[in-house]
């Protein structure tokens, strides 16, 4: 419903004015790109660099459904945990990988633990917002828009695209990998972004002839959905051409595997999505903001094995991604951050699971990170009136550091306010 707001105000992205090869017209698209792939990639990258503070890249990983923070960063010494979770607490504490005297990582996060040991992982504890909602959809919207008052419609990354980078339609500046729809965080009526579910199958069956025909068919389309359609087709054509170039020059330097048993309700192939993200980054497509999703975190029932499996899947995909970036000499440019709409209830339920909660830790991973624990641990004995963990850090503090410190964007303009700093970056690029 909210996604409909203002759709008729959508402006037609003017690809012609971008000054690239689009002047050749739709029919010339494929041929033009194929003939001068390197020149094209360079032209796009150069055009995009104008107005950008740096060539840093952000990869947001959504843990959809509400990730159990207590099973991600495990309190090792608090006896209350065992009272609240008689079934779930024992194994998660005894198997945890200790980071400090009091906290350990889920035992399936071994790859991330080794990055922690190298000082490349920051964990911000107790992240949330005031008066939390326990609705998935409302809380997702709050995190996506960066607005707990629920007035904002556009996503925080979409606004970043529109305000900090060109808003004139370079589709690959923002990209959602491994999904079919535009994630709310990337959505902004003034920004163009790409969605690629599966890179191997992305393209027109029938090749350039169909591409050209469809390009001609979707031009100046009338009606309220006209601009949306035309932009989507032009974006697709542009992306197909870029992928043709980037796929040819990319060799993965890590083993991405999606052979794990997918846990309900993850249908996203996280490793494949991150591999596509790596390809876009290392081949110089000019991508800045990437979004991938791993579902299945709504663990109302039989949480024990299911959450462990999810942690293992996250760990192997992120580890491969980091390794690949490092082997291509890009690890210093890329910040990986997780987000989830809420944590889970400290007390377990009859189904061996946990209901919707509030505050939870976030993971920040990569060479730009100053490793360590930030924020403050939520108390298990002083819960709020709904039996949930009280937040210590506003999630927008984390966004602020990412925007200003990593992307060099004006976080105050994008978030509409400033927040307490959480200095989890080694060398923030802008004064905050």
């Amino acid at each position, binding site marked *: *419903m909210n996604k409909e707001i203002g759709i008729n105000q959508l402006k037609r992205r003017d690809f012609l004015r971008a000054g690239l090869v689009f002047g050749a017209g739709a029919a010339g698209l494929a041929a033009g790109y194929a003939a001068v792939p390197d020149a094209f990639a360079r032209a796009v990258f150069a055009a995009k660099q104008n107005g950008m503070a740096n060539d840093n890249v952000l990869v947001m990983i959504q843990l959809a459904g509400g990730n159990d923070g207590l099973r991600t960063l495990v309190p090792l010494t608090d006896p209350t945990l065992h009272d609240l979770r008689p079934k779930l607490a024992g194994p998660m504490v005894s198997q945890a990988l200790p980071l400090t005297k009091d906290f350990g990582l889920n035992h399936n996060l071994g790859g991330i633990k080794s990055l922690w040991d190298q000082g490349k992982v920051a964990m911000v504890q107790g992240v949330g917002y005031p008066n939390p909602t326990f609705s998935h959809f409302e809380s997702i919207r709050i995190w996506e828009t960066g607005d707990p008052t629920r007035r904002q419609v556009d996503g925080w990354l979409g606004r970043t695209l529109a305000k900090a980078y060109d808003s004139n339609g370079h589709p690959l500046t923002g990209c959602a990998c491994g999904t079919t729809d535009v994630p709310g965080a990337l959505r902004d009526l003034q920004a163009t972004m790409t969605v690629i579910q599966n890179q191997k199958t992305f393209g027109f069956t029938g090749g350039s002839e169909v591409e050209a025909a469809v390009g001609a068919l979707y031009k100046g389309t009338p009606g*309220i959905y006209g601009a949306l359609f035309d932009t989507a087709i032009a974006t697709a054509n542009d992306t197909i051409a870029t992928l043709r170039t980037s796929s040819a020059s990319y060799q993965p330097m890590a083993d991405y595997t999606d052979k794990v048993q997918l846990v309900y309700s993850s249908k996203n192939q996280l490793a494949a999505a991150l591999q596509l993200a790596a390809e876009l980054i290392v081949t110089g497509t000019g991508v800045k903001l990437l979004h991938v999703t791993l579902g299945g975190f709504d663990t109302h029932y039989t949480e024990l094995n299911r959450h462990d499996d999810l942690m293992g899947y996250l760990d192997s995909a992120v580890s491969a991604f980091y390794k690949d970036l490092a082997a291509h000499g890009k690890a210093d440019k890329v910040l990986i951050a997780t987000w989830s709409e809420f944590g889970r209830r400290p007390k377990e339920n009859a189904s061996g699971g946990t209901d919707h909660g509030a505050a939870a830790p976030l993971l920040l991973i990569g060479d730009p990170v100053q490793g360590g624990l930030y924020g403050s641990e939520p108390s298990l004995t002083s819960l709020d009136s709904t039996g949930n963990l009280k937040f210590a850090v506003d999630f927008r503090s984390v966004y602020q550091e990412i925007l200003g410190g990593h992307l060099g964007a004006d976080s105050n303009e994008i978030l509409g306010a400033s927040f307490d700093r959480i200095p989890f970056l080694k060398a923030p690029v802008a004064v905050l």
Partner: protein
Amino acid sequence: MALRAPEPVADAASPVRKGITRRQALAAAVATGVGVGAVRLLGGTIQNLSHTSAANGMDWVSPLGRESARVMQLLRRTSFGYTRAQLDAALSDGYSKTVDRLLETKPAEPPVLAAAATPGGRFGVPEIQQWWVGHMLTTPTPFAERMTLFWHGHFTSDYRKTANNTFMYWQNLTWRRMGMTDVRSMLMQVTTDPAMLRYLDLATSTGQSPNENYSRELMELFTMGAGNYSEEDVRQSAKALAGWQQPPPDSIATVTVDKAKMVTQKLPVYNAQRSGIFNPRRAYKGTVTYLGHTGPLDTQGVLDAILAQKATAPFIAAKVAQHFVTSQPSPSYVAGLGDTFRRSRYDMKTLMRAVFTSPEFTADASYRALLKSPAEFMVHGARALGATSLSKLIVAAGSGMGQSLFDPPDVNGWPNNAAWVSSNTVVERVNFVTLALAQTKGSLPSATDAARTHLDGVVGPQTANLLNQAPDERTRWFVTLASPEFQLK
């Protein structure tokens, strides 16, 4: 902008039009160039009827002043497309008789799905997906399937968590049979539906240690909407609703799941469709305070308390309006529908009649104001081609467009309209058309008439241009089905 005079066409007298003349195409191209007006095909001529919209400068020219166009829009929004013969029948009936027929015709039952007898419901999900699509493609009562799809997205469950495809099959049969009854009965049914009992965990909730999953979504997504109840209400109804369990099976089958290792499993077998059963030992014994009332409360009591809330009727009416009328229904329209709905004791036939006979449903502003969901788009396309054997392709192609049946993205079901469009989904829509044409062997229905039959004769300049240039029938069908016009309803 002045009206361009209709241009005479050489063979205007001929009953079968050969397509659009080059001269007309040029006129269309000129229209594009100046950026105003969509093109309307009328009786062998193209009229450039200028029509300026605030944002984009161009809008479709609504043909809804004509009853035939209103009938076609009604069919697009209440069916999965039509063949020429089905369209002709509706056109000769007229609008109001067609509404009566939609509402009063008993849903045709789909064929029995033999795989549903598999112990534990352990058969592949493509079987049930293809079974349903197959029925969509051939049913004489497509409106029942549109309502079943609407309810499948509203009282939604998915096969992954339900992990028993027999239960998913039952749920589908239920919405076909109950989709036009009353919401009070439907709420009791969905609460005790075996797939739903698993999907939102009510089957494992107990009064002593309740699971809030069903309790919350019942209010947030099924009936009232967020903001109309408190967190305490979620907790209280979680207690009051606890006690339902899966139906006991008629027998247990021992099935070998791993022949090499000789692993067997005992799986439930059902001889007939069943609902969940209530186990008082797992229920909550005390009183609750729920939506302002304190006392002992059973499941029917919870549902009746919800139905007594002011928010409930408009919430469901708004969802229906967004699905069938416009992506942004006005508050007064929703309030009016909600009043009618509530006064009828939540009777779906009354609500749907109010929707189809409301001025909003056929207002010019409603023209092409909705986007076909992937299932609607694909089944409509296949029916237009007379291709009833494309269920496998339709099932396979759905996921790239964002819609796999029995597998909604989350408990909120599927989105509507603009949310269906991304760079990924538009490519997949076009690819479906390419593959559907490749897989449709033999002769196709005449494409000459397709723009009129399936696009109301109202096409944009680009579509007109490409239809003109199309060298053969297949290309003309490709342009028709891949066009922006055909994505809309």
